[in-house]
């Protein structure tokens, strides 16, 4: 592995983390949207809010991490991708603003109308943002971004079969991950009925995602032959792992082993992302620019590697502590903090 590939791989680990954790947060927003009327959906929305409130900001930073590594180590390719695909990226960024702000503000507001408005903002943007990010991936993976600033078509680079497939799959995968994660959260809180609801949703989304995935192979064969060849060739083992892990997750869900289902689902999603990376290797801009060609100077890559390793040493324990702290059941007697950790002390 070359230095550039090492740096890019670390970036890709960040991308996977964003896909899993950030993706599940987006998915939670999608279920918030579909939770039903004010009264009926209240408990589900409460569960969703409690499980993502402490962690969504940290999960969101993975995306920033991906962006900064790309623009520093692969500046030219980054400039090409972002300037060509600026429309879906702008829309995704707007979605993130609407989503983060609405979510954070909702819990500080008590009037029903305002909560509904903010809730709708949060939920709709949770649907919109992963779609556009998936469309961006589709544009890159189908080789629609040529090198150079704004050299590609600013419309057809993300309005095309592969991008639509990418967008739809992203939404489905987010919704699926969230449903699986929420099963375990609901059970830990003792809400068995909610766990059952999310289990049914997880199984349903799994079926739809599988069907779209299979149909997607035909789309790719017609629209992105290079990617298709990679997925059925070099990346085939990753695709197989994804299918096996996905099937295992369904079995675990069916037998209500939610902790196992989480791991298997995460593995399935990880494998499919790795599959994408393998399929388009060694290109960073498919068919045009390889990783080596796009990599910047050695001093920058070394500085980057030092930073990434040193940063990980600080970051990972802190992140682990965050998750452990909020995955523990709330201590008895602290129920007042449930839906909004800082409400009770507002003297």
């Amino acid at each position, binding site marked *: 592995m070359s230095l550039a590939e090492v740096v890019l791989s670390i970036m890709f680990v960040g991308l996977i983390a964003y896909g899993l954790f950030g993706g599940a947060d987006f998915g939670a927003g999608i279920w918030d949207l579909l939770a039903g009327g004010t009264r009926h959906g209240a408990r589900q929305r409460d569960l969703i809010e409690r499980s993502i409130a402490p962690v969504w900001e940290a999960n969101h930073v993975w995306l920033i991490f991906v962006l900064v590594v790309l*623009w520093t180590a692969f500046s*030219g390719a980054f400039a090409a991708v972002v300037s060509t695909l600026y429309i879906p990226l702008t829309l995704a960024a707007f979605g993130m603003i609407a989503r983060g702000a609405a979510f954070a503000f909702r819990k500080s507001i008590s009037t029903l109308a305002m909560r509904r408005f903010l809730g709708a903002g949060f939920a709709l943007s949770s649907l919109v943002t992963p779609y556009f990010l998936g469309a961006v991936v589709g544009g890159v993976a189908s080789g629609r971004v040529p090198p150079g600033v704004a050299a590609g078509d600013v419309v057809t680079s993300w309005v095309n079969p592969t991008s639509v497939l990418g967008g739809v799959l992203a939404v489905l995968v987010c919704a699926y991950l969230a449903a699986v994660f929420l099963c375990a959260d609901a059970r830990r809180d003792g809400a068995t009925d909610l766990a059952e609801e999310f289990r049914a949703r997880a199984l349903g989304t799994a079926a739809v995602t599988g069907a779209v995935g299979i149909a997607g192979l035909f789309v790719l064969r017609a629209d992105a032959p290079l990617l298709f060849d990679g997925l059925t060739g070099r990346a085939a083992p990753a695709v197989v792992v994804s299918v096996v892990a996905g099937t295992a997750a369904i079995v675990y869900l069916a037998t209500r082993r939610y902790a196992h289902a989480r791991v298997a689902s995460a593995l399935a999603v990880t494998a499919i992302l790795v599959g994408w990376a393998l399929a388009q290797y060694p290109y960073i801009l498919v068919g045009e620019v390889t990783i080596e060609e796009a990599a910047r100077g050695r*001093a920058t890559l070394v500085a980057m590697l030092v930073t990434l390793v040193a940063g990980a040493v600080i970051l990972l324990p802190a992140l682990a502590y965050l998750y452990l702290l909020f995955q523990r059941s709330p201590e008895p007697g602290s129920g007042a903090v449930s839906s909004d950790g800082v409400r009770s002390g507002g003297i």
Partner: protein
Amino acid sequence: MDAWDVVADAAENLYPARMQMALSLGWHIIFSCFGIAFPLLTVFTEWRGHRRGDAVLTGLAHTWAKAMGVLFAAGAVSGTLLSFEMGILWPGLMDRFGEIYGFPFVLEGFAFFIEAIFVGIYLFGWNRLSPRAHMLSALPMIASGMAGAFFVVTANAWMNNPTGFRLDGDGRVIDARPWAAMFGPSTWPQVVHMLLGAYMVAGFTIASVYAVGMLRGRRDRRHHLGLLIPLTLAAAVTPVQIVVGDWIANTVAENQPAKLAAMEGLYRTTAGAPLTVGGLYYDEGLHYGLEIPKALSLLIHHDPNGVVQGLEEFPADERPPVNVVHLAFDTMVGLGSALLLLAVVLGFTWWRRRRIPRTPWFLRAVAVSGVAAVLALEAGWVTTEVGRQPWIVYGIMRTAEAVSPAPGLFLGFYAVVVIYLLLTALTVFVLRRMARSGDTPAPQEVDAEPPDRSPGEVALR
């Protein structure tokens, strides 16, 4: 695609791209100030509360933590938009200089990550952690807030004084040294100026909220402390900021003489140059301003007859827009001086009488000090950013060369205007709601609505 091609023109994109960046950054910079300074104030108050067993102080800290959560979320999402815009609006800059300019942002990414993690732990661990563990969890938040500011300002300082690389014959970067690039001549003065500015903005703004409450008759201990703690921090920092201001002006004079000339509206290179306050710049000179003889030479060279370079030294297409820069600079200095006066009044009264001044005029001044500090921050930022024009990388790359030529880009500007109007309205609305519901009802308002919602309303959402 023909219709698109008509507008596919970088020149057409320059103005809206600049305005979009200005709006996004100008909005974000206020919230990042709170991200830097608010944790310090909150955890200090929490610590005093625990030490003295003072429920008013812990209650105050708890309210601040909630407000901090809202402000941090607003800062995080607006910062995300910026990281997209860096590539969307200025791909030319990223393409050519990303490996140097981008590197501090990698470090900032980690700082932001740590901050986000510990904000989550601090806010949501309020009742899960012991007081000691809870307060300790705030320390990484404070440190990473400061570190993040350092890294971002480093990148900006590099745009003002690019170092740490060489260019080959075609203008391509060779021999990039990203660590060295972080420590150019502008870095330290800019970083210190920004950090102190953040403490001033947060301190004066929070104090002003309680000053308004006190003016409305809420003279309880909570309001008293809510005013005193942030105001003390801001007042202590203000005189230092004035000294740092002199340091940064000297750095600018040395490294970016065109910016300094624009700040002072000075056209002719002059020995014994006067300092002109206010005025309008046209016909190669400032008109209607208030001149203080020889003051500029004295400030810059610490010599009343020192020679200060004027705009005439630079080709017309390398001069920044003088009026904007000069008036923004005067606004910053004027407001900074007014805040210094406020700090002196507070310090004097405290020294002689061990209490805050009792006159309503003092409270009124504190009540507007928050707005003044924010305006001074924005004016200072306009001074340094507009003063750098027409360069995006000073002396090397013009802003016009960096802007994206993508068709339709200007539409993004209108969208951003709408989004930020909404976001601002919502943020203000939410903070006002919180201010109302988080307060202990004062004796005179016991018949006001209860601070917490009824259980029925919580279920109904």
